[in-house]
């Protein structure tokens, strides 16, 4: 017997032992009960902090709120995986949440198998992810919301507040409030850690063992009638333009010939009260215009200008690059023009 076979034998034996006594009828009954009761447990508990409270907003991935000695609690972040974001449940792909992103869950669909959240690339917009992708412990009992791709959130505008929860170690958790009013809650130190109820293996079967258990097709609606539908918030329109710092070009000259600088990096800093959605550079005289800037660290956006081919012999032109930043609401502003000299040959 080789290693694989022995591992398979011992693991399967251990699994069979661990699963001994499972009553299929009891499993079915428990699932039916859960389906009838709805899908979202009312209380979420961040056990790592000893925090119990109602928190609007959660973490995508499997890192919720980790203890952080310096700040009391770290923010909600995407952990190790990247996730696709969708326009609507089962809708079109609209983006990606990357490791390190802060993501806030703002709602769910009626069946609870999709969650609505702020698009980490553009906090003013909403996106959806399958609920499977999100740690249920990191998400509070968020309201049911319809899929409204056109509705935008004015992140950071009159919606940010602080919610404190009294915890075992006087840890304060700060989360941005979203669509629900969050009342501070004080939880005694001795608050028991809640666990979801489970059906003990010895639960009496409700279906005769001889007959295959069936999930009754007459299950009630998946959303309890006590959960009121939530109307998307009416938020003030975003009329503030992004601001752009003077752009820089490094180096300020590029050449077609090998052995010299073939490209120049154009850098600009863009800020917006909601979020900059795009930065674009346009120019005339050489090819490649327009071109989108890529977002870098903080609010820095960069674009590589060049390389160029097909320039005529003796070509030299001071190319003026005009940079425009836009936010999700369509507001835009133009930075001062940056000039890059383009040559066909190295200048000595």
């Amino acid at each position, binding site marked *: *017997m*080789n*290693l*694989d*076979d*022995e*591992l*398979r034998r*011992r*693991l*399967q*034996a*251990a*699994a*069979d*032992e*661990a*699963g*001994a*006594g*499972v009553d*299929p009828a009891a*499993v*079915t009954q*428990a*699932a039916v009960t*859960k*389906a009838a009761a709805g*899908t979202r447990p009312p209380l979420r*508990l*961040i*056990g*790592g902090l*000893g925090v119990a409270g109602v928190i609007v907003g959660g973490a995508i991935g*499997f890192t*919720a709120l980790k203890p952080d000695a310096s700040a009391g609690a770290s923010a909600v972040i995407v952990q190790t995986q990247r996730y696709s974001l969708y326009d609507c449940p089962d809708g079109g792909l609209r983006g990606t949440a990357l490791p390190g992103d802060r993501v806030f869950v703002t709602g769910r669909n009626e*069946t609870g*198998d999709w969650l609505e959240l702020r698009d980490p690339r553009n906090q003013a917009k909403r996106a959806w992810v399958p609920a*499977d992708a999100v*740690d*249920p*412990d990191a998400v509070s009992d968020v309201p049911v919301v319809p899929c409204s791709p056109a509705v935008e959130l004015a992140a950071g505008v009159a919606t940010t507040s602080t919610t404190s929860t009294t915890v*075992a170690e006087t840890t304060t958790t700060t989360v941005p409030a979203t669509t629900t009013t969050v009342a501070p809650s004080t939880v005694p*130190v*001795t608050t*028991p*850690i809640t*666990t*979801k109820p*489970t*059906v*003990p*293996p010895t639960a009496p079967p409700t279906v005769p063992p001889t007959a*295959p*258990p*069936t*999930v009754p*097709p007459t*299950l009630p609606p*998946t959303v309890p009638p006590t959960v009121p539908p939530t109307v998307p918030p009416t938020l003030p329109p975003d009329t503030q333009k992004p601001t752009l710092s003077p752009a820089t070009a490094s180096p300020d000259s590029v050449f077609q010939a090998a052995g010299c600088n073939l490209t120049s990096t154009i850098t600009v800093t863009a800020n917006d009260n909601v979020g900059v959605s795009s930065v674009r550079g346009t120019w005339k005289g050489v090819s490649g215009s327009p071109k989108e800037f890529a977002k870098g660290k903080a609010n820095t956006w960069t674009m590589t200008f060049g390389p160029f081919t097909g320039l005529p012999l003796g070509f030299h032109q001071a190319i003026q690059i005009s940079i425009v930043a836009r936010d999700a609401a369509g507001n835009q502003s133009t930075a001062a023009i940056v000039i890059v000299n383009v040559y066909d040959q190295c200048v000595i």
Partner: protein
Amino acid sequence: MRRQDVHAVSVPPTASEQRADELACFVQQHSQRLIGALTLITGNRATAEDALQDALVKAWHRRDQPIDQLTAWITVVATNQARSGWRRKQAEQRAMDKIGGRANHGAAPASEPDNELLEALRSLPERERQVAVMHYVLDQSVAQVAAALGIADGTVKTQLFRAREHLAARLTLNADRTNDQQGGAA
């Protein structure tokens, strides 16, 4: 007038009836092994049962949508649920340790007949443990595990290789490992 033949017409089952039948069949055939596998992943029987129930509920809520390979789908969802639940339990335990309490982890396995194996499993990184259990216990191929977890075949092979190495290092095995040094499970 020509007499028309009359045929019996069978009414096709509704989506709800079909999904109910599928789930019932799944539970009858696979629930014991799957709960056992999930218990190995999480180390907690109650968490495993909870995960399977949640997966069944999800499958039921999607009854209007066809699910290819329902068994594999439920297995993956339950496994992911179990991972989440396992993390929650760990967090709860840490929190309770801080305040000097003890978390109730639900029903413990009736017995631990292979403590050496369970200890070795617990020592594995979470992903390695999940891949190993899905492959060895649930008899899923590398390709199936990769598809289920949304990762590359090569990643699964790597995780399996590491899991085997770790388990072999910690277990008393009477195995001929000659073949396994060359690559391993397919």
